[in-house]
């Protein structure tokens, strides 16, 4: 069943992860979603800033941890410092409790492991009432 269209920002420096995430999001019922991508935290922060300025904020941010220029923790902190309350879900292959806690402390709302799948995205979308 098709769900409402949402705006998603996918932040990951690895193209392979972005390709898989795109397909997984589409399979999770989001054929019409707006999907923007950022290859590092600094670009992500700018995209969020631009989206707020355009009165078209994101509905969801999927944030990788380890990236050049600015990592996921710092990007999450800066987005929260802007007053943006968009759900941020950390996506990382390092699922140690310390990693999860660091992301939550930075302001992320949830954590999921890589690689993203239709099922994981379905759970995330349901959790944040984006279905």
């Amino acid at each position, binding site marked *: 069943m098709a769900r409402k269209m949402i705006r998603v920002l996918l932040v990951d420096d690895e193209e392979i*992860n972005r390709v898989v995430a795109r397909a997984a999001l589409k399979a999770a019922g989001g054929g019409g979603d707006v999907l923007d991508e950022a290859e590092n935290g600094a670009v992500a922060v700018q995209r969020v800033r631009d989206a707020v300025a355009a009165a078209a904020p994101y509905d969801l941010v999927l944030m990788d941890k380890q990236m050049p220029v600015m990592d996921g923790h710092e990007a999450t902190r800066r987005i929260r410092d802007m007053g943006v309350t968009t759900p941020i879900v950390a996506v990382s292959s390092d699922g140690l409790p310390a990693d999860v806690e660091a992301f939550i402390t930075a302001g992320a709302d949830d954590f999921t492991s890589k690689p993203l799948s*239709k099922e994981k995205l379905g759970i995330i979308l349901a959790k944040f009432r984006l279905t």
Partner: protein
Amino acid sequence: MAAAALTSQLNALVSNMFAMGLLDDQFQQLQMLQDSTAPDFVSEVVTLFCDDGERIICELARQQEKPNVDFDRVDSYVHQLKGSSASVGAQKVKNTCIQFREFCQQRSRDGCLKTLDLVRTEFYDLRNKFQAMLQLEQQIQACYPKH
């Protein structure tokens, strides 16, 4: 007839890759994500993995030739390879990357060198099989000319 034989070969190859532990569930997930709107999705992901892997392994070899190995830098590259292995379902390569990272954290030059050899062998073995798989897929597609 040719298509059936090629398809049979392809299925046997992929089944064997699963049976040998080269691939895990994630590869099946990728196959399920492929559809008529993204008919080359698996091929795209496989190609990205092969290209990334080649680049990273060359860089790892270069890093380990240095008199003073920067283990954090090596770990960062291995993390990348582990990530792309996980994305494509390359189970064996991914698991070896996990071991590799442990040697990086232990600052063990010998451990890192041995594991680099292992991951290189496993990666090239998998890459060869992926290339054979993609070739078979192309041959099968060629049996069904587009209208």
